[in-house]
Every structure is written in C-alpha cells, then in structure tokens.
C-alpha cells in the first residue's frame, strides 16, 4: 500500500493544480485547447493520489518496488508530454510568425511603390 501521507500530498497538489488551471482559463490567460493536457495531468495525479490500490497495481505490474515512485514516474511522463506538446505549438507559432512577417514586408513594399514619389 502507498503510504497515506504521500497520497494526501499528491491529492492536495493535484487539486491545487486543477484550481490554478481553472482560474487561468477563467481569466483568459490560458486557452481551453492548451489547458486540456494540463487538466488530464491534474486529473490523473488526483485519481492516483486518492485511489491508492490502483497505484500499487501499476507499480507492481511494471516492477516498481515503492509505489509512490510510480506516481513520480507518471508525473514525469506527463511533464515530458506537455513539453513535447509545447514544442509543436512553438513550431506552429514560429511558422505563422514567419508568414506574417513575409506578408507584412510584401504589403509594405507594395504600399511604398504605390505612393506617389515626391
């Protein structure tokens, strides 16, 4: 069995995380589409924190002797997932940024050409 204290700490941390995510969405500092993965992370940590049997089962099945370690392994996995997700988001943004800069430059050039010379 997972030590009770670890479970409580994990559950409280997860709840805190979920609340912060909620508040960020509410105040429009975080878009829903980028919050989905964060919410999933928070919910999974919360479930594992509360449902201690599940964590032990998972730990046993992958050969982790100390169940709380499994919690941190999973947390690390989700952090990796989030980072990877952000890498793809940044790539898209970089691409769009380039396209905007190009369009702006061409537009400026065209305006410049159309302006009657003085």
């Amino acid at each position, binding site marked *: 069995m997972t030590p009770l204290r670890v479970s409580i700490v994990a559950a409280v941390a997860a709840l805190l995380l979920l609340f912060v995510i909620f508040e960020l*969405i*509410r105040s429009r500092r975080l878009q*829903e589409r980028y919050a*989905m993965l964060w919410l999933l992370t928070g919910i999974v940590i919360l479930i594992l924190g509360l449902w201690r049997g599940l964590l032990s089962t998972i730990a046993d099945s992958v050969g982790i002797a100390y169940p709380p370690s499994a919690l941190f392994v999973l947390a690390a996995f989700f952090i990796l997932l989030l980072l990877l997700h952000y890498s793809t988001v940044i790539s898209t943004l970089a691409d769009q940024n380039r*396209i905007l800069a190009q369009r702006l430059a061409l537009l400026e050039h065209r305006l410049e050409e159309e302006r009657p010379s003085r």
Partner: protein
Amino acid sequence: MVQSFSKGRAEGRESRGTALRCIAIVPAYNEEASIGRVIEDIRDADPSFEIVIVDDGSTDRTAAVAEAAGARVVQLPYNLGIGGAVQTGLQYARDHDFDVAVQVDGDAQHDPAEIPKILAPIIEGDADLVVGSRFLGEGEYEPPVTRLLGIRLLARVVSLLVRQRVTDTTSGFRASNRRAISLFASDYPHDYPEVEAMVLVFRHRLKLVEVPVQMRLRGAGESSITFWRSAYYMLKVLLALFVGLFRRYPTPQEDHQ
C-alpha cells in the same frame, strides 16, 4: 415555430428602415468545388447582399474561384480555423458598417434560399442572433448515431445555460444584427465556436432565436469531423462552457448610430 424568451429586448430599430445593409459571410477552407455555387445561390436569393468570402488559408483555388464569381475575398495568411475565419468576416461587417451579417458555410450545405427565414426575426427586431436549426421539423437530416448523441447532449447543456430551448447548437447558418456583430467582432470563441457563441450571446443579455431551416447534404468534400476529433471538441466545448459560467460579462452598450 419560433423560439424566444422575454428577458432582454432586441433592438427594434431595424424594423423601421427596409434598406438594411446586409452582408453574407462565407468562411471557406478548400471549397473550390462548391464556393462558386454558394455565391451564385446567395445572389439568386437576394442580389442586394454583399458577399464576402473569408478564405481560411486554402491550398486550392477557392480564392480565385470566388473572385471570378464576383465576390469579395478576404484571404487569411494561414489557416485560423472556423472561429477565426468567421470572426474576420464579422470584423469586416463591423468596419464596413453593415446592419446584418448572415453566415453561410462555403460547402453548400446551407441553402441560401432559406436566408429570409433566418433574417426575419432580426428585421422584426425580435432577435440579436438567429440560428437556423435542422431539428425543428423541417427537412430530414439524420446524422449518424454517435453524432446525434453529441448534438443532443450539447443541445441539452446549452438549453440549460441559456434558459430557453435550443436544438441545433452546432449550426453555422446564422444571422447577427449590429449588436451581435460588434460583440463577436471583439470576442468570438475559437475552434468550435457555434456552441459557445450561443451562450455568449445569452450571457451578454442579447436575444437568441432559433428558426427551422432545411439544410442540404454536403456537396463536395468530406466533413472534416472525425469521431475522435468530435470527442475531443466535445470535451473542450463542455470545459469552455463550464468555465464560462464563472466569468462575468458586461451588459452591451447601446449601439451608436
């Protein structure tokens, strides 16, 4: 049958002049096969409409075809998704001082001959946003079971939130008056905007009305909605609706004329 509720009052001003300036906003992403027909049909339905195609970063000849058909084309530099595209059209409508904006999909599933129906409540001053619904008895639209479940669930949730019965929350066949145009031009949801927009309208104390319309089956092209994507969007929309409950919204200012 017209659904309405008594709270809030739509602008009655529109009912006076018959010369309302109307614009049809057509968001289009790779619709070269159907966009010409859509433009033609809108013109047949009402030649006084200005038609603006918002080309959402198409990689085909959508913009060229639309221009050849005589429509105005606003070309986005890259794909913004339906929300961003529609909002661009509404910003155009706001900047060019239109009274009414009708949104018609570029895939020809909306029949422009039905435009007068969604226009009527706005002309009467009974609504700020009119949504054409496929589920109020007209036409026989039968979606696949899983989609029907999603449609029903969303209709139920949104009905609760806006305290009036709505049936077709994902319908993109809609008409907005000045107040709705100015609201949406500054604040329009992303990704899957139709559902949230209905709630947004209610939260801003604007008036929402659904009218029955017939829609065609999609002409050219596949629907872009797959099962997993729908499930994801469903969750995202429900999240957005839930969080939206805890936001505070300003009452709209009287529109200046």
